[in-house]
Structures are given as C-alpha cells and as structure tokens.
C-alpha cells in the first residue's frame, strides 16, 4: 500500500511544487510516516485494533467493512428511487461519507494532525512550514481517500450501472473531494479551537471531543438503519431552499445529479461550482495563510507543557483533592496496599488520556444504545423485558474498562511491582478493581438506572439493584477468569488477542443470569430475595480475587 501511495504521489509531484513545497522532503516525510504506521500498532488508529508485523491488515479490514456497509446503504438508497428523486438519497450518501471522514479525522487522526513529536526531529531540519504541513495533509488524506473510496464504491457501481459510467466516475471524484473538504474543515476547526482555548487545555478538550465523537459514531449506526427503513420518506422530492447552498453534501449530490438526470440549470451549476471549487480553494487557502500559524502553535504546545505542569502542581494544595480521595480509600479498602492501589488507579484513570479514550466511548455507547433501542418501535424495544436486557447489556461495556486497566503507555513503570516487597498482589488487583467500580461502573449505572426508572417506572428499582449486583458479580468473575495483570503494567499492543472466546463465554453467562433474573420477576419477591444472595456472592468472589498469588499473575 505504501508503494502505491508513493507512486500516486510521484504522479502528482508538480502539484506540490506549484504549492511551493519541497517535493523531495515531502516525499521523504510521507514515506517515513507510512513506514512507521505499518510497523507500530497505530495508536492513532486505536479503534482499528492491533496491527500485525509489517502490513496494514487491520486498516484493510476496516476498509472492507466500510465497503460492505457502503454497499448495503447504497443498495438501500440508490438502487430503487427513480432518477428524478435521487437528490436526497445522494445527499445522504455524501453526508455519510463526510461524517465518517470527519469523525475518523477527529477521533483517530488528531494525534497525527497535532503530532508534536515531529518538533524535535523535523523542525530543526531545513524543512519549510508549508512542506511539513502538506506532508501531514498527504499522509492523512491517503487514509481518508481509502475510507472515502471504500464507502462509495457501492454507490459508484450502482450509479454507474443505472446512469452511465460518467455519473459513476463523477460520484467517485466527488467522494474524494468530500474527503479533501473534510481535511480542510477539520484543520480549520482545530485552528479555531487553538485560538480560543489555551494550548495546554487543547489536548484535554480534544480528548473529550474524541470521546463524544466516538459515541456519536456508534450512535449513528443505530440511526442509519431506520433512515433506510423509511423508504418513502427519502425518495420524496424536496423543494429547493436557499440554505441548501450551505450544506456541503448537497453540493456533491447536486453535481452527481447533473449527470444522473441529466440536467443543467442555474441551481445545479451553483452547486457544482461549490462542490468543485470549495475543496481546492480550502486547501489553497490553508496553504497560503494558515500553515505558519499552525506549526507555530504546535511547537508552542510542546514547549509550554513543562512550565505549566510545574505551576499546576505548585498550586494544588497537598490537602485538596488528596484528602477526600484518601478518605474514600480508607472507607472502601481494608489494608494499606489495597488503599494505595485504589488511589493510584483512581488518579491514573482520571488523567491517562489513552485510557479515557478507550473506555469512555464504550460506556457512552452503552448508554446511547440503550436509549436508542428503547425508542425503537420494533420487537425488542417495546417488549416486557427490554429494560432487563438493557441493564445487563450495558454491563458488558463496563468489562471493557476492566480489560483496559492492565494497559498503559507507561507500562515500563511497572518495575515497581517487582522491586517493592509486595506479598499479596491480590490486594493491588482488588484496590484497582474497587476504584474502577466506584469511579466508572457506579456512575454509569446510576445514569443508566435513572433512565430506566424514568422510562419504565420506579417499581423497577428492585430489578435495577439486582442487575447491578449481578453485573458486579460478572465483573469479578470475568476478572477471575481472565489472565490477571497488574494495573497499568502492559504495553498497549502486548495484550493477546484472546478476547473473542472470552467475550463469547461472558455474554453466554450474562445471558443465563439475565434470563434467570427475568424468571425471578414472575415470582413474588423473587428479585428482593435474590439481591442479597447476589451481593453475598459478589463479596465472596472479591475475597477470592484478593487471594490472587504472584503465580497467578502474568507480568508484561
């Protein structure tokens, strides 16, 4: 894939020279970046999972999935409607492509866009701002083109088959332009963000933005099938409004429409002009005016971090946050080792951006899924035991967090477990697990429970309690069953890929418990009786977990 991208790049070399970049340097930077992406487990592509040794397998896999999704959506939206009412389906297609590009950019590539590790290596070299910026854009765009193409290939074929190859080609070209437009808009977005927020806050804000995006991303999957479902709603012809000129997907759709119908009126001409000119103009504009600013801001991020950090820790009073956390720790733990692990885990989970990025979206999605399902008029959402399903289903997402607990970028610091005289590592594990339960699981369940109670009535409180307790039991069991690691002791890519079997087993057990719970609801007071039992099992299991010996722990 790298060779292909570089080959294409060489073909377009004059373009970059015209943009005032040093092509030799640009090519060298892009090449090195691609090689590095292939080699490391692309952290920025974290969601795409583990990378194997020397290829882009998981990215290719993602592209395949996108292709399938794209084909399904295109079949649903583009295959049936008559050609005069294709405008809205086309708009939705392009919206989908643009949304996915934007989300990928923000959630997966912001670390690439805002990468300040280049500062030490490339900035001291005679590389112009423009060249560096363009190299970054090319690097990112090469991925985005892959995504845009795989999403649109279905649509391209359908449109090409129904309305001639020219329309199909147009569809494809406009998908690529959509990706370019998104690069421009995202860059603009970051610049605006940088202008209004102080730099040291920027990474934090982006982190939360990524989390939000990820939730929306998953939520989008829920929404989309229903859009496809209502066939007649989308095939209706919409009247032209002035604000349509402000909606980028409509530019693209109208331009394809020109070849689909075919038609050529003033409206379509304006749309087509916007579609073709805006991405190019955007890139030109950024290249002309914003690059210097951008790299400058980036090098600021890096250099400003250290002084700010010292100022921060100086401000924090030793008895501020520490005391209530210590207080909480003394309440819920039984010995000092456990207490230390509890406070340690509490703090790290709140500060490690990677951890937050891996876990919070999952939790958010759990909530989003439940809410979306409960509104769905279909079979499951309205059935009597949906709220139970929701409660247990959400429990699955908490387990992901437990899984992430062993992983950290600072895994090397885990030498401390080896050098400190720790006799009962189980206490450390237990402290960490308790922190996780109190910090993530409890608030998550409170929100979930509030929603369930609000929607299905207060009398479901007994079920909520039992489900919560059962989820805790599941959490500890899953911790007991899986390989045990000390908290934050594993390199991010070191985790073995054995989660499929474990995941299957967990969902199976979860289903059994869930259905038993459902059965209990038919017995008077059954749930109330079962709850203390479940709580008892939970504490029993905790004791087992606490007894974990060194022999049962795998060090990274």
């Amino acid at each position, binding site marked *: 894939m790298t060779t292909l991208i570089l080959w294409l790049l060489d073909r377009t070399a004059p373009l970059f020279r015209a943009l005032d970049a*040093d092509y030799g340097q640009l090519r060298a930077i892009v090449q090195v970046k691609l090689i590095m992406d292939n080699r490391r487990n692309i952290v920025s592509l974290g969601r795409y999972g583990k990378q194997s040794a020397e290829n882009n397998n998981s990215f290719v896999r993602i592209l395949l999935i996108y292709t399938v999704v794209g084909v399904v959506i295109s079949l649903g939206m583009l295959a049936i409607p008559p050609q005069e009412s294709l405008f809205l389906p086309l708009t939705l297609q392009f919206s989908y492509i643009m949304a996915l590009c934007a989300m990928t950019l923000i959630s997966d590539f912001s670390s690439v866009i805002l990468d300040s590790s280049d500062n*030490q*290596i490339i900035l*001291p070299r*005679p590389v112009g701002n423009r060249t560096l910026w363009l190299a970054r854009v090319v690097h990112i765009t090469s991925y985005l083109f892959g995504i845009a193409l795989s999403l649109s290939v279905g649509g391209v074929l359908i449109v090409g088959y129904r309305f001639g190859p020219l329309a199909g080609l147009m569809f494809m070209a406009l998908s690529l332009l959509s990706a370019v437009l998104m690069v421009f808009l995202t860059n603009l977005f970051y610049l605006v963000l940088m202008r209004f927020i102080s730099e040291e806050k920027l990474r934090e804000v982006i982190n939360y933005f990524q989390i939000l995006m990820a939730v929306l991303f998953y939520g989008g999957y829920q929404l989309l099938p229903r859009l496809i479902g209502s066939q007649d709603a989308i095939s209706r012809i919409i009247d032209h409004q002035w604000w349509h000129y402000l909606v980028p997907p409509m530019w693209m759709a109208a331009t394809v429409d020109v070849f689909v119908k075919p038609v050529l009126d003033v409206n379509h001409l304006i749309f087509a002009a916007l579609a073709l000119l805006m991405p190019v103009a955007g890139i030109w504009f950024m290249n002309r005016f914003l690059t210097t600013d951008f790299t400058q801001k980036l*090098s600021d991020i890096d250099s*400003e971090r250290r002084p700010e950090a010292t100022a921060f820790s100086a401000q924090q009073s030793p008895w501020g946050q520490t005391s209530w956390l210590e207080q909480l720790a003394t309440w819920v733990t039984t010995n000092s080792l456990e207490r230390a692990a509890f406070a340690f885990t509490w703090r790290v989970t709140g500060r490690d951006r990677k951890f937050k990025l891996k876990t919070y979206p999952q939790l958010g999605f759990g909530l989003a899924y439940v809410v979306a399902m409960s509104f769905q008029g279909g079979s499951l959402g309205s059935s009597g035991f949906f709220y139970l399903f929701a409660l247990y289903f959400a429990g699955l997402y908490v387990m992901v967090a437990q899984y992430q607990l062993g992983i950290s970028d600072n895994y090397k610091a885990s030498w401390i477990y080896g050098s400190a005289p720790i006799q009962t590592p189980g206490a450390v594990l237990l402290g960490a697990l308790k922190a996780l339960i109190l910090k993530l699981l409890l608030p998550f369940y409170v929100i979930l429970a509030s929603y369930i109670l609000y929607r299905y009535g207060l009398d479901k409180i007994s079920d909520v309690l039992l489900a919560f307790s059962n989820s805790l039991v599941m959490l500890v069991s899953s911790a007991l069953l899986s390989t045990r690691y000390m908290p934050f002791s594993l390199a991010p890519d070191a985790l073995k890929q054995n989660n499929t079997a474990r995941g299957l087993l967990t969902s199976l057990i979860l289903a059994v418990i869930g259905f038993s719970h459902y059965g209990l609801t038919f017995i008077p007071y059954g749930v109330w009786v079962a709850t203390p039992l479940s709580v008892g099992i939970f504490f029993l299991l905790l004791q087992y977990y606490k007894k974990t010996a060194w022999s049962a722990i795998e060090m990274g």
Partner: protein
Amino acid sequence: MTPVIQLQNIHKSYGSTLVLKGIDLSVSPGQIVGYIGPNGAGKSTTIKILIGMLPDFTGEASVLGMDVKTQSLDIKRRIGYVPENAALYDTLTPMEYLQFIGQLYALDPAHIDRKALDLLRLFQLSDYANARMTTFSKGMRQKVLLISGLLHNPDVIFLDEPLSGLDANAVVLVKEIIRQLAGSGKTIFYSSHIMEVVEKISDRIIIINQGQIVADGTFAELQHQRPESLEQLFAQLTGSDGQTGIAEEFIHTLNN
C-alpha cells in the same frame, strides 16, 4: 573575525514566565563553547532560539551572519543539532532514519547510504544498521542521534547533553570528535551537566542562571576569579551552595 553566533538582549517568555532575561553573547568560529546552568535556567531555550525553532522572542539573534527570525531555513541547512531527549523515530532502523534525515537536507541517497554506513561502523553499530531502534539502548540511540545531527557536515553544531547514555569509551571518542571538529574550523555550542567534561573540552565556558549569564570566559579565567573546581564555581554562581548541609539533612530525614 565576524562572530558565528551573535545574541543581543534576548528575552523569551512562555506565557507569563520569563525564561530568558536579556542574553548577550558572541561566539567566534572554531570555538567550543560550554553552556551550563541548572535545570530550567534557559539552556535549551537558548539553543532552540539559535536553531530557529522558537521565532517569538525579542532581541537580535544571528547565526553565520543570518538573522534567525527571517532566514531560519538557510541557517538550518548549515547547522547541526542534537537534541537532549533522544527524540528519534525508533520504529525505523538507523539506516532508514539517517536516509530520511539526509533527504531532508536534499543529500544524494547513494551518498547518504555510504556515509551513514561508515559512520555507524565507526560507532560500532554496523551490526545494528538494519535493526529497528525500538530495542536500542540509550547509548546506541545517542550515537544514531549524533550521526543524524552531523550527517550533512554542518558548520555550526549545537549539542544538548551529547554524552548522555554513552559508555566510557564512547565518551572519550565523542570528546575527541568534538575537539577535532573545532580544530577543522567548526563552531561547537554545547550544553551539559557533566562539569568535568565541560571543564576539559571547552575553550570557553558560559554559566547561565535564571535566564541570565552569570559567568563567561575560559576555564582559566573563571578559575582566576575563584580558584576552585568548576563544580564549586557553578554551585556558587547558581546559588545552590552548601550541598553538604543539604545532604546531611537528607540522610537525617531518611533515618527518621
């Protein structure tokens, strides 16, 4: 002789904290300048300004007669920089990394290949030339970093803690390389915490404390003012005298 490095009244602040408070400095060709100071004194900031990485400072700065603010690209082509924290793309092999760096200076690939291999051999890294640097020790990385900073045969060389992680033999070798580079007319600007090394190889020593130069001269000149070792002189000038007392207190606290 026209100075190679010239700084006039340089001020630089990060946010509201003033890091450099008026640095004046002039270095002639062929000098080895040891630039020392406690952590946070502004050493790295000075170097970053000189190599054109931090354009937003006030005052006049020029390197090789070119203005740092307006001609940074031209300056960068003729200087070498070895940063302190071993920042390199460690998923690459040394050869790939050096090839990449060479391309940024628009050197001929075949030429880079030959040169890089030779330099790696001289640093006894031939066997690792095509191994990924993720597994490299700090010293090995530092060697690659040194080569990457010198590959394009620069006229002025900025070294930030160049000996960190190197074993004793490599330290001797690098010291000798620095000396011979200066002998061939190149200017070395070099910051370090290791006083013995600075004392031995520098033609001129500049001590900076809290963003200001507090001493400037050859070691002999500095010794003339206060005839102790550089270490003691350093402690005195940077206001951290009485380390013995602190050490005693430290032991005392441990025993409690």
